[in-house]
Structures are given as structure tokens and as C-alpha cells.
């Protein structure tokens, strides 16, 4: 035995492995190789050291035998005489040696001469028992701490009251200020009271994730899915989820699918006081839903702001008010002296802000920790003050200055959570993002400028506006409160107390500020009736509802009666702007789905191009190949495609690639997710064939599939690991780390962020992991290849689709732009003159591509503006900050695009003068060319509309017939061919200008009482434009040919049937040769198709022979015509009527 002992070495891995076979077998509590097993051996080492130390000090040996005392006791506890720490452990372990002793596994040989001896086994057992006791204590300690913290929250006292109220009332309002714990506790109270199927909405996605994480931890379900979250692209919801955090928008979408919301028993709407558009609407919807669902429980949670409003809205619902937990905050009013007040055009004067920093440095010793949070209205203001503070900080070395706003990169935003080194304070300069969205601990000082920039919608100019306002008292208090979260604080208000008193009590709710298009569309699709009579908590002005309805009609989402069209009902289900949704639908018709998906996704997220790197020459050079002078959507498309390629080749290396180009990769991840969602949506509406064929994953052999499966398992593990270690310790900032955050260029380039590399890498890995889990990279690459290197034809078509989607968001370059400097290029929209291109747009740096080529004058007449190359810009946003800016623009050929997409086209008699949407005037020199172009456009549009309707109709049907699809595919190809030809090869010279106000007033001839235009005389054009009959336009005059085209209504027009306008014309398709008016000619052209092109029986109505045979399909096209000359009722098609009338005309002459 002795010799054996000498060979035993606790440090040898072999010896430990032998011990593992005794204690850590497959069936044991702790298995070899598990994390706990690793921890045990670490513990073992500590334990052995501790034991040796104790043995040496000899403490254990003193034994004074307390037997004398024990005899006196009334009760004998029967405790062992000698103390042993082991008696304090309530666990025992059955290990191999014990099993062997009990004879359970005697077949296992006992003669392991080199194995551990009884002493080693006993030593190890003791260590294991202590380890188990230690882990028990550790976990129980965590649990106790958690319960202690929960108990200490102000809301804890109201726990039973809340549950009671919810049990007895359909609606309960819980009002409590920051820190009272309502968001985390109320759902838990309900859970433990036995409610299940609870949903809790949040205005922000991040809050959904972080709350789900926190609450699942607190409700001891960290590793289960009892508590989950669901946001746009991500969900942790399973069938066992009982409490779900989700965004307001998502709950609304769920109501769209499930009218009574039967999947939930309880709905909690959190942060109702923020009054977001979705939230206000959600409350309205839930209010009417409560009538149908008497068992539904609704809880509104709010800050203690305007509580009565919510309670009253729900029939005096009971309110439970919970005090917040804030430390005292001293308020200092420090109004800015008049000479330091910023004038409108000037930069902000930094002196008032610097004085506060200085004051803090003088009054508070640096050892007393506490950071400063400074609220400014916008990014420009932030960079001005940041610059000044940075100079001060560099000088004093007592501050780290950090900006915080939404356009910063994620990594830069994250810095505000890091810790300043001792003796240094963070000075965080933020927009109102830090008022509610971002919570930073450790703030002791708040500086409040009292200003905020808010987005509002100007319905007159059809423009978003970002304007500066005074904040409300509620916001002011919210800002102040940020100073007292972790200890007593100070709030400096840069305005007078009298200003404060004059502030509005609450911020203006979003529903009063923004365009309501999406809201109205959603209301329509939810069948909520007339939006004007819907009971909102705080109804928006009727005019903004009306504006939205008009806009939706313009967009074709609503019909003239305000009902949802088929395209409208589809748009209502897409979680994007109407214009983007339209692009998707249009793209699905042609073979341009892939690029359209990308563009639509790219236009729906923030730009990936970081503003801060815009003036960095390295970034600009690296970005250059991505630029497209066709327009910003194409630059975005190129960028996305290039990124996907890099991802395919280099995986995680894409981060570096992005950084080189000043790209925020997070945005590209958002794009790829959104793109996927769009694709799924289109597919679920049968607008896209489901995946299959060659690229299907089943095509791979079994080995490949297994590989992919293992890979996925590995990725899932990585994601789990990441989630476990997430929320770890914060980094300590370096003094140099502040400063150039968003100011000077290149702050995020590699050399400067070297210190952050570890963190970056970790971030990168998890993003990459999630990306790989969600997307099949090779499939994505395939999709991207389709949209890379678009031919000029595809590009032209794609531009047209974007233009039709974005219509009526069009801008006309000013005629004098070619003589202006690049920076002074001016554009006009219908409702707003003198707008400029946002500096981030490709056209800001390359405006020449928009100019009309000088040598392209055609005839060198008096009018120099004649050209066949006029262009328009279709744009995504028009936003006024200090100037009205157009962003995300794409250029399109003016004449062709307008003819193909405009809602209102008016012409004179020979169609040489065209007024589009009442503000753009096009004049063509050659009447025959004008006619040709117009009639081609009309034909193309009719066909496009027909196919689009067929496509949408198909999407309604459960299963589209395969044959039908094949037909439409051929028709689609033909149409796109026609469109492309029209776009690229229409070489017509014309002038393009904006009408003056005076001109628009006297534009139309107005209704005419002449007998000539009585209905019997009016040619029937229903063949060309189904559903539309040419009839006199009651307002404009002339003939309304289609919903978008009115003929001969312009003031200078000549008479419709005036003989002088008839010109001899021979039809290329049939043998017709006669003098015709432009209208007659167009009409004939539309109904006369070249032989062999009669795909559909309906369209074959051009020959007289066919019409005479009275088949039922013909009869729909013929009508009874009473000829006064012959005095006879004739059954003729409209062409035939014209021909017939003409016979009499000639005979009369």
C-alpha cells in the first residue's frame, strides 16, 4: 500500500482521471468533462490548500469537550462530541467505491493496483461534499439576493392589490415612476397568481429582449422558455411560453390575424405615457376588443403622467399609483444670458455648458464619482458642444466626452455604458434618446437645454419636418430624474423657472405630429370602419386623416370610395411604408424580385453609411466602387451585394470590410433579415413561387446535409454560450477614448479602436453566428448574383418599378442647374419648391448626370430646352431640417416615367401638350410622334394593370393554377420587353417645365355644353381601358379616357372632332386608311392588334367578320348604335361605329 501511495499525485491528470472514474461517471451527478467537473477540480485545489493551512496552524486539534454543560440541558440534541465541518453538510454521494462495497458491481475488478487508495478516495469524497455544499450555498445565495431585491422594490407592497384589481376589473392602470419596478414585477405577479398567456408590449425592441431576459431570470426560468420575447426578426417564444414581451406594432399585427386575440388572457401595455402612434392605436383597438372578450384582462402601465386620461378612456378604470424610487435631486435654474443665446443661424454657444463642467470640477472632489448627462436637441448641437467640451477635457484630464445619438455606430453608442477611470467623469452629450430609451447608471449630474427636435409632417408641402421645440414639463422631469437613479443628484436647467412653468404639460403625442398613411391603411385592413369615427384616446385632426386617405387613394391602396383595393390589403400586411410595399408588389410581377427585395429592405432601415466617416478620404475611396450614379437605391444594392459576397468568402471578415468603407454592419444585418421577411411575406401571398428546384437544400447529398446539421448545432451552442456570458462586466474607458466620437472623421477606423478589438470581435462573432443560423449564405449569394451586374435593360426596368413605387414623390431639376455650382443645385416637387439634395446622396456629388446635355437640343429653335433626355428624380424622403432635403433618390427619364406612372395626364387635341399631375408641362414638337408615344404608353399601362390585377387576384386564391401562371409569365415577359423598349428607345424631343401658379389656374377648358359631346356620340373606349368609359370630364372638360388620362381638356385645345385635325393614316395592322382624329387613331390602334397576336379571345374583336358572328364573347364588346342617317339600330363595336359614321360623313360632303 505504501509504494502505491507514493505514486499517487493529485496534480497528475492521469490520477485525476482515475478519480473521475470513481466519482464523475456517466450516471453521476457531475460528469467528467462538464463545466461543473472542471469547477470541482479547481475547487479541490483550493480546498486542499485550505486544509493544509489549517492543519499547520493546528486549530482543529484543540478539543475541550463540552460534556459538562450538556448534562444540564433539558433536551439532549444528541450532537457528536467532536466538531467536524462535514457534519454541516446535508448531502451524501454514492460513488463507485460505495457501490462496489455494497456489491452492486462486483464484476468490476477490484484489483486496480495503480488506482487510488481508500485515503485518496476519502479525501476526494470530502472535497466533493464540500463542493456540493458550496454550489448549493452559491445558488441559494443568488436566489435569496434576488428575492431581497424584489422585496425592496416600491411596487412589492402593492403586489396583492394589483393581482386583486386585475382579477376584479377588466382594465387596470398601474402608474409608477422610474425605478418602481413595474415593468419587471407586474408580469411576474400575474404569473405567480396563476395567470398564463400574458403579453406585455413595449415601445422598443431592445426593451423586449432585455425585459424577457431579466424576468426569466427573476422568475427562475433563465434556462426555460416560460418567459419569451418576440420582435420583428427574432423570437424566443415556444409552446410553453406563458409571458411574452413584444412590440406594440407586433401585437397589432397579431390582432390583424387573430381578431379577438384569443391567444392571450392578459395584455399589458407598458409605457403608455410615451404616446407612440402604435400605442395610441393599440389602446383604441383593445378598447373595442374588450367588449367582445369579457375574460380579457388589460393592464396599462405608465409613468405618473396624465393618468386620468387613460383611466377615463377605459370607463374610469381603477388606478394604482406606485411611488418611484428616486434619490433627491437638486434643481438649479441657470438660464442662458442674452449675449450667449444662439441666434437662428448661428452655432450653439458652448460657454453656458462649459461653465457647468467647470463648476462641477470646483465643487465636487474627483473621488466622488458621478457622471454627467447633457441633453441637447440634435446632432449638430451635440457636435458643437462636444468639440468645446473636448478641448476642456483634454486640458483638465478629468472628463471623457461621449456623444450619444441614434446615427452613431452601435459600438460608439455602447461606450456610454463603459466606466470612466478613477478621478474622471463621463460627459455624455445626448439627444432625447437618453430620456427614456437608453438608461445609463451612475449619472449624478444632468444638464438640460430644454430643447428637443421633433419630426412633424407638413401635409401641405408633403414633407417631413425636423424642428426644434421647447420640451414639455413631463420631459423636463424625466430628464431631471436621470440624475437620481443611483444616488442624490443635481439637475442644471438652462432656462428660467418661469420658462419651465410656461412649458406644455405633456409632449405632443405622435399621432398629432406624423403622417397617418400606414395607420389608416392598417385600420382599413382591420375593418375598423370610418377612421374619422374611430374613438382614439386623443383623436388626430380630421384633416390629417383626410390627407392620409387622399394619399392612399393616390397610391392606389384605396379605391375612390375609400375601400381597400387588392394591392392595398396586401400593403397593409407589409410592415413598411406604402411606397416600399408597392415596390415589392411591383417587383414580384417581373423577374426582378431579388434586387427589389434588397432595395426595399435597404430603404427601410437606417443608412449603413456612417455619417462620421463621410469626410474620411480613405472611406470615400473604398466606397467608390459601390457608388452608382443611377441613384442611391442602386448604391445600396451594390453595397449589399458586395457585402454578401464578402460574407460568403470571408465570413466574419466582413466586419473589417465594413469598417474600411465606413459602413455600419448592423444595418446590413438588419437588411438581410428584413429582406428575408419580405420574401416570406410575398411567398405567403403567392406573389412569389416557393423555393424549390435546383437550389433546394434537399439537392445536396446526405453528407452535406449532415455537415450542415452539425454546423447548425455548433452555431446554436455558440449563440447559447454568448447569451450566457452576455451582460458581463463593463469595460473601463481610457482617457483618450472620448473626443472624436462622431466629430472628426475616422473615429471608428481600425487603428483608433484597437483597444476595443476584443469586444468587437465578440460582437462580430455573435452577429456572424446569428446570420449563419438565419440565412443560407450560398442561397443568398445566388440571389445576389441575380441582382449583380444588371443589364441596362433590367436596370431601366428596376428604375421604373422604384419610380412607380415612389410616385408621386418626384422632383424636377431646376432649369438653371447646369449654370449653378454643384452645391447649389435646386429641385422642385409638386408641393414644395427649392429643395436640395441631401449631401449623402450620390447626386449631391455627381449632379451633372441630371443635367440636360447641351448638344442635345434637337432643332435649334427659340426654345433651347428641347431634349429627349430630360430626367426626374424619384425620392424616398423629403425632410426639412435647416433646409428641405431629398434623400434616397433615383433618376428616371421624365417623359417615359410620367406617361407610365402618373395619376393624372391631360392633353390638348393633338396630344403635343401634356400636363401631368397639374404641375409638370411637357411639350412635344411632332404631333405624330406625340401620338405614337402616348398610345404606346397607354397600351403598356393597360397591360401592366391587367397583369398586376391578375397577379394580385391570384394571391387571393388558395392555389394558383399552374397553367394560369405560365400564361402570365409569358405575358409578363412581353410586357417587360415593351416597357424596356419604351424606356430606352423613345427618342422624342420635348420640353419639360413646371407650371406657374397662374398657369395652373387657367389650365382647363372646363365642362362643355355642346351637343356634340353627348353620350351617344362619344366613342366607347372600354376595349382599351376596361372599366373606364370615355366621357366628358365634368371639371376639366375634354374627354376622360381612363382614370388617369383626360384628352383635349387643356385650355389651348382645339375641338375634338374638328376636321382640320383629321389626318390620313394607315393602320399597320389592318388595311384601314382614312383621315382620323388623334383620339380615333389611338382608339383604333388599341383595338387593332397585329395578326397572330390575339392571345385572348376577348381581344380578337377587330375584324368585321368576327363581329358579325354574334358569339357571346363578342357581344360584350358590341353595343347598340342607332344611326340617324340610316335610321336603324346596329350592333357594332366602337371601331365599327366610327367607321360607319365616317361613311356618312364622306357621302355628305
Amino acid at each position, binding site marked *: 500500500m505504501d509504494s502505491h501511495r507514493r505514486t499517487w499525485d493529485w496534480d497528475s491528470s492521469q490520477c485525476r482521471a482515475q478519480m473521475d472514474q470513481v466519482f464523475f461517471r456517466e450516471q453521476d451527478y457531475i460528469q467528467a468533462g462538464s463545466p461543473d467537473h472542471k469547477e470541482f477540480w479547481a475547487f479541490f485545489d483550493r480546498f486542499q490548500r485550505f486544509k493544509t493551512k489549517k492543519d499547520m496552524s493546528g486549530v482543529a486539534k484543540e478539543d475541550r469537550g463540552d460534556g459538562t454543560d450538556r448534562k444540564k440541558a433539558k433536551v439532549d440534541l444528541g450532537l457528536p462530541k467532536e466538531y467536524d465541518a462535514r457534519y454541516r453538510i*446535508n448531502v451524501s454521494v454514492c460513488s463507485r467505491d460505495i457501490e462496489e462495497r455494497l456489491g452492486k458491481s462486483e464484476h468490476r475488478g477490484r484489483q486496480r493496483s495503480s488506482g487510488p487508495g481508500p485515503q485518496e478516495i476519502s479525501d476526494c469524497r470530502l472535497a466533493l461534499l464540500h463542493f456540493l455544499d458550496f454550489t448549493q450555498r452559491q*445558488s441559494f445565495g443568488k436566489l435569496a439576493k434576488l428575492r431581497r431585491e424584489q422585496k425592496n422594490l416600491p411596487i412589492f407592497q402593492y403586489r396583492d392589490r394589483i393581482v386583486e384589481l386585475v382579477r376584479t376589473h377588466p382594465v387596470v392602470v398601474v402608474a409608477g415612476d422610474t425605478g418602481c419596478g413595474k415593468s419587471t414585477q407586474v408580469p411576474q405577479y400575474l404569473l405567480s397568481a396563476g395567470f398564463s398567456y400574458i403579453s406585455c408590449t413595449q415601445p422598443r425592441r431592445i426593451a423586449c429582449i432585455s425585459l424577457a431576459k431579466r424576468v426569466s431570470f427573476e422568475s427562475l426560468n433563465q434556462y426555460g422558455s416560460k418567459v419569451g420575447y418576440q420582435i420583428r426578426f427574432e423570437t424566443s417564444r415556444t409552446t410553453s411560453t406563458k409571458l411574452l414581451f413584444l412590440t406594440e406594432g407586433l401585437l397589432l399585427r397579431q390582432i390583424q390575424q387573430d381578431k379577438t386575440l384569443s391567444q392571450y388572457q392578459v395584455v399589458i401595455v407598458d409605457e403608455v405615457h410615451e404616446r407612440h402612434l402604435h400605442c395610441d392605436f393599440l389602446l383604441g383597438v383593445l378598447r373595442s376588443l374588450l367588449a367582445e372578450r369579457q375574460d380579457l384582462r388589460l393592464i396599462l402601465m405608465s409613468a405618473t403622467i396624465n393618468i386620468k386620461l387613460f383611466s377615463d378612456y377605459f370607463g374610469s378604470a381603477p388606478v394604482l399609483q406606485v411611488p418611484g424610487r428616486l434619490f433627491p435631486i437638486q434643481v438649479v435654474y441657470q438660464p442662458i444670458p442674452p449675449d450667449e443665446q444662439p441666434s437662428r443661424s448661428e452655432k450653439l454657444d458652448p460657454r453656458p455648458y462649459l461653465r457647468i463642467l467647470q463648476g462641477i470640477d470646483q465643487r465636487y472632489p474627483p473621488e466622488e464619482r458621478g457622471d454627467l448627462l447633457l441633453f441637447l436637441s440634435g446632432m449638430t448641437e451635440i457636435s458643437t458642444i462636444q468639440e468645446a467640451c473636448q478641448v476642456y477635457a483634454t486640458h483638465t484630464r478629468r472628463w471623457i466626452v461621449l456623444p450619444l445619438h441614434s446615427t452613431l455606430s452601435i459600438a460608439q453608442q455602447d461606450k456610454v455604458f463603459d466606466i470612466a477611470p478613477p478621478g474622471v467623469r463621463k460627459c455624455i452629450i445626448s439627444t432625447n434618446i437618453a430620456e427614456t430609451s437608453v438608461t445609463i447608471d451612475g449619472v449624478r449630474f444632468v444638464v438640460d437645454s430644454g430643447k428637443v427636435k421633433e419630426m412633424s409632417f407638413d401635409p401641405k408641402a408633403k414633407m417631413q419636418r425636423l424642428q426644434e421645440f421647447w420640451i414639455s414639463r413631463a420631459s423636463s422631469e424625466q430628464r431631471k430624474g436621470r440624475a437620481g437613479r443611483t444616488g442624490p443628484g443635481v439637475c442644471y436647467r438652462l432656462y428660467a423657472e418661469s420658462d419651465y412653468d410656461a412649458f406644455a404639460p405633456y409632449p405632443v403625442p405622435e399621432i398629432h405630429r406624423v403622417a397617418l398613411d400606414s395607420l389608416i391603411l392598417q385600420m382599413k385592413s382591420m375593418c375598423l370602419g370610418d377612421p374619422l369615427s374611430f374613438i382614439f384616446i386623443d383623436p388626430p385632426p380630421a384633416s390629417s386623416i383626410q390627407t392620409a386617405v387622399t394619399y392612399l387613394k393616390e397610391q392606389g391602396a384605396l379605391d375612390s370610395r375609400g375601400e381597400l383595393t387588392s394591392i392595398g390589403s396586401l400593403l397593409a400586411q407589409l410592415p413598411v411604408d406604402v411606397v416600399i410595399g408597392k415596390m415589392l408588389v411591383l417587383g414580384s410581377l417581373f423577374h426582378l424580385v431579388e434586387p427589389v427585395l434588397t432595395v426595399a429592405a435597404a430603404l427601410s432601415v437606417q443608412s449603413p453609411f456612417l455619417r462620421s466617416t463621410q469626410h474620411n478620404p480613405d472611406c470615400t475611396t473604398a466606397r467608390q466602387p459601390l457608388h452608382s450614379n443611377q441613384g442611391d437605391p442602386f448604391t445600396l444594392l451594390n453595397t449589399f451585394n458586395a457585402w454578401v459576397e464578402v460574407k460568403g468568402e470571408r465570413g466574419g471578415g466582413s466586419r473589417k470590410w465594413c469598417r474600411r468603407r465606413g459602413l455600419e454592419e448592423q444595418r446590413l444585418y438588419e437588411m438581410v433579415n428584413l429582406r428575408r421577411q419580405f420574401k416570406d411575406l410575398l411567398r405567403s401571398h403567392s406573389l412569389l413561387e416557393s423555393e424549390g428546384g435546383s437550389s433546394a437544400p434537399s439537392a445536396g447529398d446526405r453528407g452535406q446535409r449532415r455537415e450542415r446539421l452539425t454546423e447548425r448545432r455548433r452555431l446554436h451552442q455558440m449563440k447559447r454560450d454568448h447569451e450566457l456570458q452576455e451582460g458581463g462586466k463593463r469595460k473601463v474607458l481610457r482617457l483618450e477614448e472620448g473626443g472624436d466620437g462622431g466629430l472628426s472623421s475616422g473615429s471608428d477606423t481600425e487603428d483608433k479602436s484597437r483597444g476595443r478589438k476584443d469586444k468587437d470581435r465578440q460582437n462580430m462573432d455573435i452577429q456572424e453566428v446569428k446570420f449563419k443560423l438565419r440565412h443560407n449564405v450560398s442561397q443568398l449569394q445566388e440571389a445576389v448574383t441575380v441582382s449583380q451586374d444588371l443589364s441596362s435593360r433590367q436596370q431601366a426596368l428596376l428604375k421604373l418599378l422604384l419610380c412607380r413605387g415612389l410616385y408621386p414623390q418626384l422632383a424636377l431639376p431646376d432649369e438653371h442647374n447646369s449654370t449653378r455650382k454643384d452645391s447649389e443645385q435646386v429641385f422642385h416637387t409638386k408641393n414644395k419648391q427649392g429643395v436640395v439634395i441631401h449631401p449623402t446622396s450620390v447626386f449631391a456629388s455627381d449632379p451633372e448626370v441630371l443635367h440636360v446635355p447641351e448638344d442635345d437640343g434637337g432643332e435649334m429653335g427659340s426654345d433651347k430646352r428641347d431634349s429627349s433626355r430630360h430626367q426626374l428624380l424619384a425620392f424616398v424622403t423629403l425632410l426639412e431640417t435647416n433646409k428641405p432635403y431629398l434623400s434616397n433618390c433615383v433618376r428616371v427619364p421624365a417623359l417615359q416615367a410620367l406617361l407610365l406612372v402618373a395619376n393624372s395626364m391631360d392633353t390638348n387635341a393633338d396630344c403635343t401638350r401634356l400636363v401631368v399631375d397639374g404641375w409638370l408641362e411637357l411639350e412635344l414638337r411632332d404631333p405624330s410622334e406625340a401620338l405614337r408615344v402616348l398610345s404606346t404608353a397607354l397600351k403598356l399601362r393597360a397591360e401592366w394593370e391587367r397583369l398586376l390585377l391578375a397577379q394580385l387576384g391570384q394571391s387571393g386564391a388558395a392555389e394558383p393554377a399552374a397553367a394560369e401562371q405560365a400564361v402570365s409569365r409569358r405575358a409578363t415577359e412581353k410586357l417587360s420587353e415593351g416597357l424596356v423598349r419604351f424606356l430606352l428607345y423613345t427618342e422624342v424631343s420635348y420640353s419639360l417645365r413646371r407650371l406657374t401658379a397662374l398657369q395652373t389656374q387657367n389650365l382647363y377648358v372646363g365642362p362643355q355644353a355642346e351637343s356634340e359631346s353627348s353620350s351617344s356620340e362619344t366613342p366607347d373606349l372600354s376595349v382599351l381601358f376596361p372599366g373606364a368609359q370615355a366621357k366628358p370630364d365634368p371639371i376639366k372638360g375634354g374627354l376622360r379616357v381612363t382614370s388617369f388620362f383626360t384628352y383635349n381638356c387643356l385650355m389651348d385645345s382645339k375641338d375634338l372632332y374638328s376636321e382640320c385635325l383629321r389626318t390620313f393614316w394607315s393602320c399597320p395592322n389592318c388595311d384601314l386608311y382614312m383621315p382620323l382624329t388623334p383620339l380615333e387613331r389611338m382608339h383604333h390602334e388599341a383595338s387593332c392588334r397585329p395578326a397572330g397576336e390575339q392571345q385572348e379571345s376577348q381581344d380578337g374583336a377587330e375584324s368585321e367578320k368576327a363581329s358579325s358572328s354574334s358569339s357571346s364573347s363578342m357581344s360584350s364588346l358590341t353595343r347598340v348604335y342607332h344611326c340617324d342617317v340610316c335610321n336603324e339600330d346596329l350592333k357594332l363595336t366602337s371601331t365599327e361605329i366610327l367607321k360607319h359614321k365616317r361613311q356618312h360623313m364622306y357621302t355628305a360632303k
Partner: protein
Amino acid sequence: MDQTTTEIPPKIFTCQLCGLSSPFVYYGQKPPNTRAIVLLEECFVTKDPFSPEKEKFLVLGSTCSLCSLCVCVASDCSLFYTKRFCMRCVNKHLDQFPHQIQAELAKKKQQSSKAAVS
């Protein structure tokens, strides 16, 4: 919705001294799914919520061997020394406990009173 009725309310353990309460899944000496583990007293056991592994258990508390009070395992509420004793009983019979434990408790008392003063 019949969803509510199908839910079995969880059994709750509550410490009669400090009020800590938490659901438990097992009461006894042999926590489920832990073959090699035997507890030396009847315990209220739950799954360890802080461990990702399903089989890891956590002892919440048990009953005092003298007065049958239901107590949690926090050192302020109970003590295990071959048996479970609630803190009340420990204090009542302090003399019978080995001096190591007595010293430890005295030290803790001192510390907590100091904390209360400051």
C-alpha cells in the same frame, strides 16, 4: 378559453422565519434525476434555476428537527449540523453546539449589529 383551468398551481415553499418563498418540485431525501445523491434530511428541493443543466437541484429548506418549523437554508434562518435546526432552536440550545459554531454565530451577530449601527 379553458387554458387557465389546466394550470396546476405550483407548490410553494415559504420560510417561516424570513418569509422567502419559491416554488419547489420535490420534498424528500432523493431529488429526482440525481442517482448518486442522497440528502441527509427531508428537503424542499427545486431545480437549480442558475444552472443551465436540467438535473442540477437546489435545496430551498427543510423542517427544524426540534420544533418542525419550516425554514430556509439561509444561515440567518437555520443551521445543519447532523440535523436541521432553526435559528430559534439553535439559540435556545446554543450551549450544546460545539464551540466552533458558537464562535461563528457570535461573530456573525457582532457583524450584523455593527452593520445596523452604521
